[in-house]
């Protein structure tokens, strides 16, 4: 299943510390592989690993196998890396486990290094304990050796840094403030809404992401903007065909959904921008088709397979004499995850998740 939150958190990779971000990804429906996603590694070990590109991590004798209550644990002493295997005595021989783990950590370390060099993800580090300036500087220097890698440093919010806020300190460093940290004994108990809000803001601020996305002039000629999700402003605009808002999006459900924008004056042609993500689960549901009607006239047809920014023109002729724009979305490929994805519990009839809608006057920097 592809969900907007899953797509969002897949753009991030955890560098530690601890498993909290890994659990966030799991709750969002994402299961990316990552060397440090479910591992314990002190910052000093991470710095050493980054400085050496994790040299020798999968070599013979580099891994130490131990047991705790029957479960096998792996330690890589060179980098102070330690993690569960979730395999128990009798399920696998120690020799086979070590062979597999050697290949795994070597592969995951190489993947991490590739991602660092290509700046293809935002790297997350959750501060769970005090870090000295020297440690922080060494960490940043080690990251900088890979080129443009971007760090999202996450800490608990405080009186001067409100929850869900993200500061862009320089081109390669953002700091996010979380509503609350997960309890140490229950790292799976994440502050989901706050994490998603931070990830969304960080992704929007990410210089590499911005340059990769098309130029965004959403503020020019702005007529109206709807931000979906529990912290957005969408509730006053929505008509029928919507599920309750989630952290950073709202699903259009069934085969039709509706909303309305007020118009203050004669607007001329309008540009409608939709930031959306589809429910897709190939092969049963490979795409979501989306037709857009403005005041009952069809203005666009899209086929959506991944998160996308869609846009279309609403001609002035469809707006004459109106004090509002009634938008109708037709999405005939809505499907129920519980019927398609084995083990999935969601019984809603999902089609498209909406993140944001922007309506702009054409000719005010609103070009395609």
């Amino acid at each position, binding site marked *: *299943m592809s969900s907007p939150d*899953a797509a969002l958190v897949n753009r991030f990779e955890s560098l530690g510390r601890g498993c909290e971000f890994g659990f966030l990804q799991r709750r969002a*429906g*994402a*299961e990316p*592989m*990552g060397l440090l996603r479910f591992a314990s590694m002190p910052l000093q070990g991470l710095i050493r690993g980054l400085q050496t590109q994790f040299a020798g991590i999968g070599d013979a004798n580099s891994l130490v196998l131990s047991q705790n209550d029957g479960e096998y644990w792996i330690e890589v002493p060179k980098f102070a890396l330690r993690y569960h*295997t*979730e*395999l128990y005595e009798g*399920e696998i021989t120690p020799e086979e486990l070590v062979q*597999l*783990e050697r*290949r*795994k950590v070597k*592969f*995951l370390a*190489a*993947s991490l290094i590739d991602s660092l060099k290509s700046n293809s993800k935002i790297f997350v580090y959750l501060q769970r304990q005090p870090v000295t300036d020297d440690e922080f500087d060494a960490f940043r220097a080690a990251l900088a050796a890979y080129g443009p890698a971007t760090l999202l440093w996450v800490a608990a919010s405080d009186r001067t840094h409100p929850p869900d806020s993200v500061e862009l300190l320089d081109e390669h460093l953002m700091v996010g403030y979380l509503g609350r940290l997960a309890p140490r004994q229950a790292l799976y108990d994440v502050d989901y809404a706050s994490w998603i809000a931070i990830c969304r803001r960080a992704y929007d601020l990410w210089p590499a992401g911005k340059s990769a996305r098309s130029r965004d002039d959403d503020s020019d000629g702005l007529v109206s903007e709807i931000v979906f999700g529990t912290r957005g402003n969408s509730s006053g605009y929505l008509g029928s065909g919507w599920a309750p808002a989630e952290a950073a999006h709202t699903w259009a459900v069934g085969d039709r959904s509706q909303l309305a924008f007020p118009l203050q004056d004669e607007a001329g042609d309008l540009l409608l921008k939709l930031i959306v993500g589809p429910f897709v*689960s*190939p*092969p*049963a549901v490979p795409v979501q088709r989306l037709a857009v009607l403005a005041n009952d006239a069809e203005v666009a047809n899209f086929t959506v397979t991944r998160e996308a920014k869609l846009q279309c023109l609403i001609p002035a002729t469809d707006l004459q004499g109106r004090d509002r724009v009634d938008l109708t979305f037709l999405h005939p490929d809505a499907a129920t995850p519980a019927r*398609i*994805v*084995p*083990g*999935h519990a969601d019984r809603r009839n999902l089609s498209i998740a909406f993140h944001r809608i922007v309506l702009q006057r054409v000719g005010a920097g609103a070009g395609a």
Partner: protein
Amino acid sequence: MQRQTRGMDQGSLLGLIAASLRLPVAAVGEASTMQNTRRWDSLRHVLLVTRIEAAYGISLTDSELATATSVVSIREILRDHGIAHPGPSTP
């Protein structure tokens, strides 16, 4: 594991995946992915790839290891390696 012939019958791949993940065969289908399949974690992923390599007599690159995260993509990789009948097992 004993090496099997190239052009392994269609259902065997799902059986191999299920066995590697220690799941019943019915729990794995053409739409199965690492995202939606219980127990398909990074270690079992490496185990699965290792068993696929042994079964089909091939060796996967790191890039293929990274992308072999669904039944569909595994079939595509097998096709790229000239495996004759990696088609779906469903009628």
